[in-house]
């Protein structure tokens, strides 16, 4: 050791020894470890109290450590957790069963009420089970108020509520809840670990969520879902994170927990809106109006349908009693009637019958096939028309006998006797009630007997009409009647020729007004021609005369079967040779 070293030793020996010791502590790992271990717990404790981010910074590494430890040695940790697993599982199951029982009660309660029946229908329409639907409908709630209460002294740390909620002294409520909590815990929890977690009061449910320093008590209207508890716990955890120490030391000075109400207000956002009870109870005006309109429409259509049914009955009755008409079917389409069946050309028209029972003609369509009716009224009418019945004569039908009463010229009587055989439905003639009419014939030149006889026979056959239904088709029976008529006419012509006379035959065709004028003229001519052809086939020649203009050209557009005919006009002339 030189002098310099000795001098250093003398001057700085003690310091150097201290420096060496420090260097030794820093360089030796085991010494450093011992030093850190000595202050570690104190350092952690201080950091936890003074550094707000301490817990946050430890969360991740501690979590990872736990995760790895559980993975590497599950048996050890399983054994360690075993004592707490059982109670935790039991508690969870009990909670679930309690909720389930509550839901079952709701379902049963609503299954027989009017509301239940309505929901049952709606569930059926929605295609989901009734129980599930009831749960959906009953899971309506709203957090009305939230109290944050110090666990240590029961003082109210914060309180929020909806505007409409009725609030009493929130400090007293907070204290009383704490008192009840203490009472329940001391009275019913032997190990004093039990907690009052919920209470029901009419429409409200109180839920308490417990934290280390405070409990969150929420007043909930309706039935909250189980998940709400987790949401409320999250709010309480957040509050503890921000105000944990302040709440732990809370002595009633709200300034120490600034803006805690802002955090609490998160609770008030938890709600599931129920359908507006008002709109559910009251029937909307539009629905009432719609209902009234519907009722009015039903009443209107019902009344109209009833009216039409009445009209149908009246029409049916009138048609069934009308002579010469046989109805097979009346079809009703709304207020329109279509009548199908048979109608004698001499019978009253269908639309006239409808009009007689107050049904407008335009609502009635007749689809009638012509036929020859043997009803007495029609026989009488036919006879009257066929024989040009004088007004002084009355016809009646008794069985198949045509009863004639009144007064008529003997020539007419003769003509009747000669021609009644062509009248369908008549086999005999009763002339006992007919008296001869005395006609003054001043200065008349008596006709030769042969001419008079011919005239009498001609009168019987003159003016006979044969009817058609459609076009040039004869009505049933008239074609046969025409052939009989032609035979009589041919005989007359033959007898007339022998007496130096001739019988000129003119066929007059006729139509009703249902077609246009040109068509009617053509049709009238064709009908006359059709009759002429029948006459010609039997050797009788006839002249053509179409007189459609008499009737068809009126253009009244009405169907009238009695005007669809061909008429045979006869005239007795002296033969040129005899003149």
């Amino acid at each position: 050791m030189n002098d310099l070293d000795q001098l250093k030793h003398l001057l700085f020996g003690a310091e150097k020894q201290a420096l060496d010791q420090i260097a030794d502590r820093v360089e030796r790992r085991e010494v450093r470890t011992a030093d850190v271990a000595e202050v570690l717990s104190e350092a952690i404790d201080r950091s936890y109290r003074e550094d707000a981010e301490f817990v946050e910074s430890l969360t991740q590494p501690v979590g990872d450590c736990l995760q790895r430890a559980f993975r590497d040695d599950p048996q050890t940790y399983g054994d360690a957790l075993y004592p707490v697993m059982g109670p935790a599982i039991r508690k969870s199951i009990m909670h679930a069963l309690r909720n389930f029982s509550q839901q079952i009660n709701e379902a049963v309660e609503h299954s027989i009420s009017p509301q239940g029946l309505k929901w049952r229908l709606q569930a059926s329409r929605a295609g989901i089970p009734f129980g599930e639907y009831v749960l959906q409908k009953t899971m309506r709630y709203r957090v009305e108020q939230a109290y944050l209460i110090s666990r240590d002294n029961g003082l109210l740390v914060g309180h929020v509520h909806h505007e409409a909620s009725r609030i009493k002294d929130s400090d007293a409520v907070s204290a009383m809840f704490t008192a009840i909590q203490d009472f329940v815990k001391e009275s019913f929890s032997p190990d004093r670990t039990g907690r009052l977690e919920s209470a029901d009061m009419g429409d409200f449910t109180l839920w308490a969520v417990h934290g280390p320093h405070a409990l969150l008590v929420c007043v909930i209207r309706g039935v909250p879902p189980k998940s709400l508890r987790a949401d409320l716990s999250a709010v309480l955890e957040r509050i503890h994170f921000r105000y944990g120490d302040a709440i732990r030391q809370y002595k009633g000075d709200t300034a120490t927990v600034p803006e805690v109400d802002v955090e609490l207000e998160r609770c008030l956002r938890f709600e599931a809106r129920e359908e507006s009870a008002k709109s559910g109870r009251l029937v909307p005006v539009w629905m009432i109006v719609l209902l009234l309109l519907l009722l009015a429409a039903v009443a209107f259509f019902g009344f109209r349908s009833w009216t039409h049914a009445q009209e149908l009955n009246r029409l049916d009755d009138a048609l069934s009693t009308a002579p010469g008409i046989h109805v097979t079917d009346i079809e009703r389409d709304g207020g329109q009637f279509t009548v199908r069946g048979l109608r004698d050309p001499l019978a009253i028209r269908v639309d006239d019958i409808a009009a007689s029972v107050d049904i407008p003609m335009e609502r009635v369509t007749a689809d009638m096939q012509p036929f020859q009716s043997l009803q007495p009224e029609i026989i009488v009418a036919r006879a009257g028309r066929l024989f040009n019945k004088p007004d002084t004569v009355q016809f009646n039908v008794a069985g198949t006998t045509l009863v004639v009463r009144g007064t008529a010229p003997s020539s007419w009587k003769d003509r009747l006797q000669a021609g009644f055989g062509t009248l369908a439905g008549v086999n005999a003639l009763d002339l006992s009630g007919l008296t001869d009419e005395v006609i003054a014939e001043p200065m008349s030149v008596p006709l030769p007997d042969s001419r008079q006889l011919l005239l009498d026979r001609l009168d019987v056959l003159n003016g006979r009409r044969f009817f058609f239904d459609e076009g040039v088709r004869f009505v049933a029976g008239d074609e046969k009647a025409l052939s009989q008529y032609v035979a009589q006419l041919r005989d007359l012509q033959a007898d007339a020729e022998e007496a130096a006379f001739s019988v000129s035959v003119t066929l007059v065709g006729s139509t009703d007004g249902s077609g246009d004028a040109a068509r009617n003229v053509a049709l009238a001519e064709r009908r006359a021609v059709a009759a002429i052809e029948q006459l010609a086939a039997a050797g009788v020649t006839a002249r053509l005369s179409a007189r459609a203009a008499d009737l068809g050209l009126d253009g009244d557009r009405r169907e009238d079967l009695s005007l669809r005919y061909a008429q045979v006009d006869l005239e007795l002339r002296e033969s040129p040779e005899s003149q």
Partner: protein
Amino acid sequence: MTRLTSKVCVVGDFAVGKTSVVERFVSNHFSAKYLSTVGVKIDTKEIEQPAFDVTHKLVVWDVAGSDEFGDREFAYLRGASGYIFVVDGTRPRTIEAVETTQSQIGERFGAAPSVLLVNKRDLLAEWGVGDELFESLSASFDGAFRTSAKTGDDVDDAFARLAQLIVENELRGK
């Protein structure tokens, strides 16, 4: 103005007039009818303390009377900022129960401001707490008052004194 809320517990033997004292303080009302309190009854009253610029709300826990406190009763006292001990001036033996309770509270929850109300001052003919005894009792509390819930004498003063002590205590703790 600072707002402060404090929990105050009213403690005492049966029928010393705890509920009547609280009712006189909170509602300025007295009922001669005796109704035994079951468990705890809670009321609140706000008082102004201009000296400290504080609006002070007292949450008064009127704990059911008992000659011996059990765990349930002590649970009600947890976290109290101050105590009102009430004894019956006509029944000096009620003092013993209060002294016992005060001692137990101190052991369980630590020191806190407290005042003693020797109640039923209106019944002077039956009064049994002499001046000497009253003075010795005063030394054990932060204040002692001869009160009458019936007439209202000194009731408000007693609560005001306790409130003041609580505020001072809180301010000291800050």
